[in-house]
């Protein structure tokens, strides 16, 4: 098995992790259905370095990895706070998250 570096726990067997999909910004809560359908179903499916959600199962910890999915090499892992810094509000104006 390959090894993966969990930001919380250090190097672990990749079997301890669950892949969680591409990191893509969620549409605004009131965006039109097509935007949501795109977000739910459509993928870049890039060959190369991708940014992904990963979950360390034993410690129930979600984090983000930058991975080269052709060479099967994880370049970097980091906590989600690095990208998701603020509380997401669904105000009437349709607040966005980034």
């Amino acid at each position, binding site marked *: 098995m*390959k090894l993966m570096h969990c930001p919380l726990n250090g190097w672990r067997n990749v079997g301890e992790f669950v892949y969680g999909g591409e990191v893509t910004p969620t549409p605004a809560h009131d965006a039109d259905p097509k935007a949501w359908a795109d977000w*739910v179903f459509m993928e870049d499916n890039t060959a190369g370095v991708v940014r992904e*959600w990963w979950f360390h199962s034993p410690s*129930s*910890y*979600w984090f983000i990895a930058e991975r080269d999915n052709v060479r099967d090499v994880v370049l970097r892992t980091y906590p989600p706070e690095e990208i*998701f810094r603020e509380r997401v509000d669904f105000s009437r104006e349709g607040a966005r*998250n980034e």
Partner: protein
Amino acid sequence: MNERLPTPWGALLDREQPVTFTFEGERVGGYAGDTVSSALLGRGTWLQGRSFKYHRPRGPFTLVGDDANCLVQLPEEPNCPAEHIAAVAGLNVQGQHYSGSLKRDRARFMERFARFFFVGFYYRAFYRPRGIWDYWEKFIRRAAGLGSVNTNTAHCYRDKQYAFCDVAVVGSGAAGLSAALAAADSGADTVLIEREPVLGGGLNYHRFDADGSVGSALRAELVERAERHEHIRVYRDTQCTGRFGDNLLALVHANRLTKLRAGRVVVATGSIGQPAVFRYNDLPGITTGSGVQRLMRLYGVKPGQRAVCVTANGNGYGVALDLADAGIEVAAVVDLRKRPAAEPRADLVRERGIAVHPDSGIVHAVERDQHVAGLRVTRRSQAERDGAPGTDIECDLVTVDVGATPAISLIAHAGGDVSYSNETHGLTVRELPPGMHVAGSVAGPCSLSGARAEGEAAGRAAASGAPAALPVPTERDGPENDPWPIFAHPKGKEFVDFDEDLTIADLRNAVREGFDSIELVKRFSTVGMGPSQGRTAAVNAVRITADQLGESVEGARASTNRPPAIPERFGHLAGRGFDPVRYTPMHQRHVDAGATMMVAGAWMRPAYYGRDGQAAVREEVRAVRENVGMIDVTTLGGLEIRGPDAVEFMNRMYTFAYRKQPVNRSRYLLMTDDTGSIVDDGVAARWADDHFYVTATTGGVDSVYRRMLWWNAQWRLDVDIANVTGAWAGINIAGPNARAVIEKLDSDIDFSAEAFPYIEARSGRLADIPVRVLRVGFVGELGYEVHCPAGCAEALWDRLIEAGREFGIRPFGVEAQRVLRLEKGHIIIGQDTDNLTHPEEAAMGWAVQRKKPFFVGFPALKARESQTLTRRLVGFRLPADTDPLPEECHLVIDGDRITGRVTSISYSPTLDRPIGLAFVDPERTEPGTPFTIKGSGGTLIEAEVCAAPFYDPDNERQNL
């Protein structure tokens, strides 16, 4: 006749311990230390296998199992390489793939029809008239296959171990030993892996110099140091079958698979002797030179009386000298080179009067009694000319040293680039994968001193983490490979691939059939697809294919080298086959009460109590309706949602509304995924403004938990989510006497109807056990779902059983619960819903609060609900005498159209008729509307839509 050589030949043998086993019914005598193959060879039995297509006689070629000529059958094990079976007393060994006996294989008649079995012949026949292949295939299936599997073989014990090291060295020849010592001397924690029973590799048997002393001296020095070294762990008799991500090595030895994680790997696996291709080159008695040297030095076998040594480098001369030393007559050294280089071994051969034929080619071998009896050689340029004059040399042993191919499997597994080089006339490593070093002949022909130096350098580099260096081919001065040790004969039978019985013409014809690359040639001809995976065929196949295509062979690749490097048993990979099962804390109580347990995801739950399912379920249902029952609901799981944003979080994760849910009250939960499909339901009890306790569906809580964490990693709400499933247990006690039972227990909770109405929740103590109690309505009776810490579960169970004894309390299982909830029309997620069901379809629109700005799945739901509904879940009933009853997933049809299906159905003991839930046409959902179910055998059954709940429609009983 005693074929064994005297000591010091036969270093692995313990001649004090003779061993007898049977082969093909005959007694074979050998010694401890022998393999089955060496013991057979020791008494002159070279015929150890039969070829796949033509049933030609075969014997060991590499003598170490790199070829697959000697696959034999053990009572419990097919396809066992005879070279790898230790000879032990009482072993019962049979040959494989013959008709009659191994010695007299009737199926060899196939060889006479070889002309009809040209390459890819099975694509050209057996399909006309249409359908005839079914008939032919039966014969072909029976003719194919090698060993037989014994379907009574027990599931053997094999286990697995994890190991770790800084540097792993694979191979313990001169290069490997040097690498391991250098790494260990640098302080690295080093593992040395060797597939043979002894360390040393070629140092054990190769003749590097004229008098043959260099090898053993070096061996003594290096092996002794390695075995004593405090930083080296030695694995002998261990195959490294693969290298996987981040230098994870699979090591197979005895009954164990060791998964070794190495910081760096040094590959020093050496090379594999290659055949010369000429007519009848596959006969028993034609072997590699190094194989014969190993046979003599390690196993003390006298390989023949009169030998010919075919060579294209200095090694054949070393072999000739060894043979002569052992008392075998060497009729000739046949050198393919036009001008063989001068060197001490060749000089000594001449001095000893052994005939040398330079610039030679081979016309054919001669067969007698299924063994080689002679070789016809000629001038190299004439070898393929029909009728050219030649020399016939009588012999019963032919050794071949025309080249070796690097054993690059592990390098290939790791993604290293390997291709043919015109400099070395063989496959060569072009680029090393990260974290991997090489040393010795695995990087191409090299000298002994070169192997040592490279090993030392590689070991040091691996220990220090320095980059790996690829040796430069031209600087290595090793035994050269012949670029074309291939001699076509007009009558053919020059075998390129022994496993598949493929000849030169077969490969050339494959190209002519339009398969114009090595990959396509491989797939069409099956070259390299047999048990030896091209280890002795790929290089010549690459050469012939390139030649036929008119392309340069420089840079040509053999087809991808994949794990395992050598065949490995299923049992080693499976190990003990651990498959965890999850028990609730009350599991033993169920077992003791005679429950029939059932699989529920990873959990085990009681299906019913007793052996007779039908009777038990009926009685359990009655007990709950008329009296009191209790069921273990631990598997529903538990989550704590706490914090200032708890309500906001609940509102976003679930479809319903939670802001106004009062404290100490429960509320239904429904969860949809991003596509608006229902994925889970449950109940949430609110303990405080900022505290919810959530239960889910059996086996569902872990994925709900994961989803929640994922969403909140993005929303960053001020809420803490904890999965407390393992910490809590739950029992649901239900029935008209439920209150009477629970009130018997000491408690600070007032269970009266006024103080604790339906749908409310309380926490406190019950019989000294801290509890959370929810009044929920799944089975439709007065009931209390009591949650307690897991450690108190058995005590709680016992208290309730005891308190309920005077009422005749009955534990009930999943099957009864299914009927009870069906009588109330409640859905089970995953049974009454599938992975596309949205709330409207399941008549759950009431659980969706559309005024919220967002919940998971809301945008999808809005989109889907704007489309016409195609189905809707309804309750239905059938006449009481319906027999047989339709089953779940029997279809609902309207003429030819499938309009839905039955999702739940059961005979209701309470209502005395069958009831169920089904998806039907959304236009036909009025109670009383008939619809058609297609039951067993296509019988059409008329059902009637019926409002749910079927039982106690006003919910009076659960509100008691």
